[in-house]
């Protein structure tokens, strides 16, 4: 029991279950899935679809955060990606052609890759603080997206592109298949190659990593590039869902939701050990939370308030001071005789003289 409680996924999963229970109580049919036209329908399926873009962005964000960084520009990259793809399709003579759609996708992803490379360059080569380096693109990115769309909301009709947003594959939403597929592949690569370990080493102790021959700069650069690419893919999914590129509103606050998903998933913003399964649960929690608000008949506009409460509770629970109190409390409750408390640990009491 204690092991279950201590597992890093316990609290996020508990939150997810609590949300699902609340929904089912409010609407007993919530969890039911029906098959219609050979596709799965139902609230859980909708949640999976809604999670897709957030999951992609949070995936890149997790890797960036592991290196002690942060990527604020993902929302802007989402907007740029949609703008590029839809502008290309809209201006092409044959928007229904798969070739046009594939070209559009390739163009969008290529540009987002370049944006990621740019962020990585500022952080790893010029040594600019990640929060500032990505703030630049966060500010300018939406301007670039509007430049591409000419300031209008570009709408298109293109069946092949629409598949990305609302199509089904083997009965499942294509968007979810793509996002979860990419997630699975990346998670597999990260854990089966040495990437995960080297990223964690870089995030935990950059100096020791350098002396051990870890190519920290290259790794850092790589994760920002990946973050840009994944945000671009998320942008495609979002624009395909609405079939419109709205440079102002596409992916607004997705960077914050993604950071939140990472934090809920138990990865500390201070870098190091990261937890992709936690991020997955975190993204599901956020998507379910948004759904819950509608199911419970609360205006969706109030969602931020719930999000705030979740962040506050989670971060306070994770804060060092709270942890000390909690462990002190459980120790007091423990049946076994209390261990002698060390009077002073050098690392906690020492006022660092540097």
């Amino acid at each position: 029991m204690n092991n279950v409680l201590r597992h890093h996924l316990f609290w996020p999963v508990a939150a997810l279950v609590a949300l699902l229970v609340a929904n089912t109580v409010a609407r007993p049919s919530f969890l039911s899935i029906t098959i219609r036209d050979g596709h799965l329908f139902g609230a859980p399926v909708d949640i999976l679809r809604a999670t897709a873009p957030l999951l992609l962005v949070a995936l890149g964000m997790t890797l960036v955060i592991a290196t002690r960084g942060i990527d604020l520009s993902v929302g802007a990259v989402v907007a740029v990606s949609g703008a590029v793809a839809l502008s290309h399709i809209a201006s092409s003579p044959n928007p229904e052609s798969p070739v046009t759609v594939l070209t559009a996708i390739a163009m969008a992803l290529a540009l987002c890759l370049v944006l990621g490379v740019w962020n990585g360059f500022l952080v790893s080569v010029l040594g600019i603080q990640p929060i500032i380096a990505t703030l630049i693109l966060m500010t300018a990115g939406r301007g670039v997206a509007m430049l591409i769309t000419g300031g209008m909301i570009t709408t298109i009709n293109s069946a092949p592109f629409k598949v990305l947003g609302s199509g089904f594959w083997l009965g499942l939403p294509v968007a979810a298949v793509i996002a979860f597929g990419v997630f699975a592949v990346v998670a597999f690569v990260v854990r089966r190659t040495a990437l995960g370990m080297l990223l964690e080493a870089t995030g935990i102790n950059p100096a020791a990593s350098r002396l051990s021959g870890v190519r920290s700069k290259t790794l850092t650069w790589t994760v920002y590039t990946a973050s840009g690419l994944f945000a671009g893919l998320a942008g495609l999914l979002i624009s395909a869902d609405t079939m419109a590129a709205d440079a102002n509103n596409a992916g607004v606050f997705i960077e914050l939701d993604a950071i939140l998903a990472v934090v809920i998933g138990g990865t500390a913003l201070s870098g190091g050990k990261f937890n992709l399964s936690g991020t997955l649960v975190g993204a599901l929690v956020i998507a379910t939370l948004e759904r819950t608000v509608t199911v419970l008949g609360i205006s969706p506009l109030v969602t931020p308030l719930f999000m705030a409460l979740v962040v506050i509770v989670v971060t306070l629970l994770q804060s060092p001071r709270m942890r000390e109190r909690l462990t002190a409390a459980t120790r007091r409750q423990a049946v076994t005789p209390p261990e002698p408390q060390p009077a002073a640990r050098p690392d906690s009491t020492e006022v660092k003289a540097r």
Partner: protein
Amino acid sequence: MTQQTAPPVVEMTGISVEFPPVKALDGVDFSLRPGEIHALMGENGAGKSTLIKALTGIHSPTAGTILVDGVERRFTGPADARAHGVSTVYQEVNLCENLTVAENIMLGAEPRLLGGLHWQAMRSQAATHLKRMGLSIDPASSLGSHSLAVQQLVAICRATVGDCKVLILDEPTSSLDTDEVAHLFKVMRALRDEGVAILFVSHFLDQVYEVSDRMTVLRNGGLVGEFATADLPAAELVQHMIGRSMEVLEAAEEVVEHVERPAGATPLLQVVGLGRKGSVQPFDLDLYEGEVVGLAGLLGSGRSELARLLTGADRADVGQTRVAGQPTRLRTPRAAMRHRIAFTSEDRKGEGVVDGLTVRENIVLALQAERGWMRPLPRKQVDELVAKYIEQLGIRPANPEALLRNLSGGNQQKVLLARWLSTAPQLLVLDEPTRGIDVGAKAEIQKLVADLAADGMSVVFISAELEEVLRISHRIAVMRDRRKVAEIDGGGATMDQVVDLIAGGGAK
């Protein structure tokens, strides 16, 4: 010079400080009289900083009493200590570079006007204090625009504002040049003559002899003794600091045998005139297979800096490097690794272990980093490697999945050794591999180094403990004042011979 009759301003008796399971200080007595400069001597881990921190309230002693001006005190922290006249100036200047000199001196005791800061008065008062230090700098200039030496003096200036009875100077000279040190000493003497008691920590023997009246020597958390500076020859002081710990002697009294090198053998690593400005003077060194070269010297003598240049951890400004006769440059640790050169830093926590990763991950880190992330080591090979080193080095707990932060210092050090041994190095540079670890682990590591050399590896071994260096080195390079001053044959060297070389400049 010392006023033998004056009652001590600080009297610490039987002070013990524990960080379980380590006893950082064990029943140490220390007294400081007004109007004296008292040097606190000891190698790394001797307990100097712990004693200072116990006095200023950063650490709370588990036993002992502290009297300041005859009243028993336990300060709650540096601010409280300062309020009672005990001020500390640290090695790293703990002031704010972005503020002006005047603010750095006066904040906390600033003159006010209509409830706000009275800048003009602040500047003029600061100027007065600066003048006492013999500094003629603009109080309105920002602190960051001045040299480190000036910043150090400003820090002392701040410490002496108000009622300062005791001034603690923790390694104030480590980054100053000769003229700056002379200036600092002038200030220190002036303060002493005003009746301030100065506690001076420095690893430069000649400076200690030049400026101090008395000294207290600590070793391994215990008190060695209190001496009048004039009565203690430098060589004797060094012996007191380095000590002869009997246990270690018993653990391995074997002195290594002299290895015969075939004449004209190519050194594995040969450096000529390698140096780095402000770090270590150009030096020559040849390293051969199957040989342990010890680096002897006190803290700050340049022994660590030399090791860093050999291994690409720092980049050399001048000099040539040849590996197996081929000219090359080791600009980064990666470059050194390509030539099968491995290095463990003295800063185990900051530059060695990755404490949030497991034993297994820490062991394979260097090998994996060299292969790149795309070619992961096969899990089976990793498990074998890790099991092999846990077994061979006796790493405890013998659990590959244990987080490194939960291991003791000695076991962390063994993990670091395993990390580098798994890369099959030709040259292994170990900076203080035995510092702060228990006697048993120490003997094991010494044994391992001897075995590795016997198997043909070249090892550079740095330790603050001269005994240890003498015991396992075939050759010893002696460092003093950031310079390599001698190279002697380890087999025939005696303790006294090396101590004389180390003390060199300080002997009077």
